């Protein structure tokens, strides 16, 4: 199968192990996203795939051909990999056109010019073709870097935190454009990020990475978001509400109703994790899994609102605990407004307690 195959890769800097037996596949035409905290070895993996770092253990193949491992070491310049660096690494002494042409030196002059014009159009920078990088805005530089990476029609594109240098508004626009360009190119793409929203927007599949430099879970965005395999993966997607309690009769009782205990036995300590956006909020009771609470604060976040309430409950540990609920639209309650909080049982994740 075409695309990138990484198998059993270990990597260490001195005594610091950054990758521990990571394996993954990026099929041609798919965009795979490595989601994990900084320092979990994501960038190292990209550098290994590009040949910029010497492989220590394991093997890497591109389009069925081993490029590193098993005694093979293909130099980076022969791998036909497009790499977009976090700092873009544009050549300051070359203008936009020459930056893009840099990788087209084996093409004929006419073809190279045509290809440069084509990618410039794709990223919408036709008017800036002869500007130098330092005169461009952050978003424009990002798009030059993308254009430069895809211009030589690589077999694989690697994106290292491609949107981290951009401000929020710009990020949303550039993200959309980048995705379109990559889909149009139909190339296997491996992207690393620590931003869950970015990962879910861009990726066909997400790999949740742990601190130990291994893949904890892999799946389509909906799978990994709605069915995290453990607490760590659940928390990769942002802060969660947490209730520590016990399983009883294949169920777990929470302030918001009963949720299935999965395979935890009676008396097992369990942790129930609920994303702020999993709660619903209404003015009337809505089924059995809902509860009346008094709102303690509400913050408008733009297109959504973050509502906070406290529960003084009979359940152990949850004394006066603060809960956060994120709901669409503006919610501007009076002080001490009382509302109903609802929870669909399948939106609560039950994992082993400490």
């Amino acid at each position, binding site marked *: 199968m075409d695309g990138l195959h990484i198998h059993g890769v270990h990597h260490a800097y001195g005594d610091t192990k950054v990758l521990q037996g990571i394996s993954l596949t990026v099929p041609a035409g798919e965009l795979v996203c490595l989601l994990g905290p900084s320092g979990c070895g994501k960038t190292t993996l990209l*550098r290994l795939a*590009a*040949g*910029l770092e010497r492989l220590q253990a394991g093997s890497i193949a591109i389009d069925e051909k081993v490029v590193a491992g098993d005694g093979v070491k293909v*130099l*980076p*310049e*022969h*791998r*036909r*990999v*497009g*790499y977009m*660096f*976090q*700092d873009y*690494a*544009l*050549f*300051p*002494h070359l203008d936009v056109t020459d930056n893009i042409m*840099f*990788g087209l*030196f*084996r093409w004929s002059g006419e073809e190279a010019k045509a290809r440069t014009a084509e990618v410039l159009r794709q990223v919408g920078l036709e008017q800036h073709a002869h500007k130098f990088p330092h005169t461009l805005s952050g978003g424009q530089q990002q798009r030059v870097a993308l254009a*430069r*990476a895809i211009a*030589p029609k690589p077999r694989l594109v690697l994106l290292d935190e491609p949107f981290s240098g951009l401000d929020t508004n710009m990020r949303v626009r550039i993200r959309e454009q980048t995705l379109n360009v990559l889909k149009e190119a139909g190339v296997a793409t491996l992207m690393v990020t620590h931003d869950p929203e970015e990962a879910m927007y861009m990726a066909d599949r997400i790999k949740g990475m742990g601190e130990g430099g291994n893949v904890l879970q892999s799946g389509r965005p909906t799978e990994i978001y709605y069915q995290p395999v453990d607490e760590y993966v659940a928390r990769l997607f942002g802060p969660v509400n947490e209730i520590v309690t016990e399983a009883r009769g294949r169920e777990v009782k929470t302030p918001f109703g009963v949720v299935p205990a999965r395979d935890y036995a009676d008396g097992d300590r369990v942790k129930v994790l609920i994303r702020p956006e999993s709660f619903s909020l209404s003015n009337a009771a809505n089924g059995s899994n809902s509860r009346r609470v008094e709102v303690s604060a509400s913050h408008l976040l733009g297109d959504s609102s973050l509502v906070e309430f406290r529960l003084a409950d009979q359940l152990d540990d949850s004394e006066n605990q603060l809960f956060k609920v994120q709901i669409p639209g503006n919610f501007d309650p009076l002080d001490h407004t009382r509302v109903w909080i609802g929870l669909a049982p399948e939106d609560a994740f039950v994992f082993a307690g400490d």
Partner: protein
Amino acid sequence: MAVPEGLKDGWTISTAIICALAVTPVAAVVYLALTPEPGDDIWSHLVSTVLPDYIITTVGLMIGVGIGTVLIGVSAAWLVTMCRFPGRRIFEWAMLLPMAMPAYVIAYVYTDILEYAGPVQGMLREMFGWQTGRDYWFPEIRSLGGAISMMTLVLYPYVYLLSRAAFLEQSIGVLEASRVLGRGPWHGFFTVALPLARPGIVIGLSLVLMETLNDFGTVDFFAVNTFSLGIFDVWMNMSNVSGAAQLATVLLLFVALLVLSERYARRKQRFHNTSSKYQALPGLRLRGKLGLLAMTICALPVLLGFVLPTWILIEYAVQYFDPLLASEIAGYAWNSIKLSLLAGGLAVVVAIVIAYSVRIRGGQVLTSLSRLASLGYAVPGAVLAVGVMNVLGPLDNSIDAYSRETFGISTGLIFSGTIAAVTFGYLVRFLALSLGTVEAGLGKITPNMDGAARSLGHGALSTMRRVHMPLMRTSVLTAVMLVFVDCMKELPMTTILRPFNFQTLATFVHQYASDEQLGEAALAALSIVGVGILPVILLSYAIARSRPGHGQVMARPRQKNKMSKGSR
């Protein structure tokens, strides 16, 4: 990353060899001092006779020059960065001009006009009807005080540059906070700005004091008994190498102290840079008398340190112009240029080797080696001269002995007293200049740029040619120029290590001016000053480009390498 695997160990080995070579002269001095020839051991004699005088004079010189340069440098830097007064824009760069003037040149000029037979005293005698020197008091220029004044006038720009940079780097917020808290601007200067700038001032001051210890021409001419002069005296006049080496070792202790205090100041300085963006400084408007005072404070050092001596030299050069002499001087100039270009070129090649091996190989060992290799900038020329002579002499002798034994041919002295010896001395002393500049240039090429070039299909050599060479060109040329200019001005090492009967501009000027023939030497002296202007122009250009508030990188002084060396 841009270099084939096989070369990697070659890089490391070359760096190790270069560092070993750079350290040998200093090692030789210390070795000689610790193992004197039985008949040559005059240490106890030195201690009981001249050593106290050398120490007192040297310390006195350092204190005087230190106070003078800090007073002028800091106040000018403060006025130029924080205040607005007529001519401020010009003074911003003009304050640097005296840097082009070697201390020995200014010393000859001022001696010429201020001595008994000079125009100033002559005019005073005429005005007041004095007959002899006994009728009035006039300061003796050829004295410790004179040497302090001369060096202060040409060395203050170091303090000026570094304190200016320090003032610019300060977030204006802290000064505004001081104002809002009800303090006046002057209180803010002494309680906020000055303490924050202290590390920068200390670095500038250490550079000044290193130059002070290095000076030979001025103290020789003024007969001020500093260590540098003492080393020459014991070595040349008493023909006692061990004694000279012992004095040189004591001088090295002074230098070590300076280097350590500079490093210490840098360590602190790092924590002070809270914001990397320069805000537009508001500028305290000085009007009327205050403005005039500010102008005077800035104008005096420039007038006395550059404009007046240059003007006098031009007068003399015109007055004493003689085609025969001019063609003779052209020959010496050509000698200077050859020698300085050779040293500049070599220094840059060596710097490139070191900088790339640190980049490719990295690691603590190579980094320390590269730092060691650039320590020569702190070692006074007189000390290095002793070291170089005593490394090359024995080397020549052993080559000669070996060759006579095996081939029956005497090779004589191969290195000693040749251009190779001078060049070696220059290299050791000025390597820091080229290394710092090359490293700064290389630092602008991020490792990711290498990575980008490689993944775009370019091999190591192509990356070198298409990315590194164009990006490094300016730094390399700058490095050559910096070393070139300093070699043109260098006096103590050139005097001792040059081939017999080989004159350079500097040695010619020193010889003629010492014989009270400044008129004949003026043209040559003016040429040295002219060459010295080059880096000043470069710096001024950088300063003009980096207007506060435009987020540009601050200009670094000539010794930017010295600075960047210690900052890591």
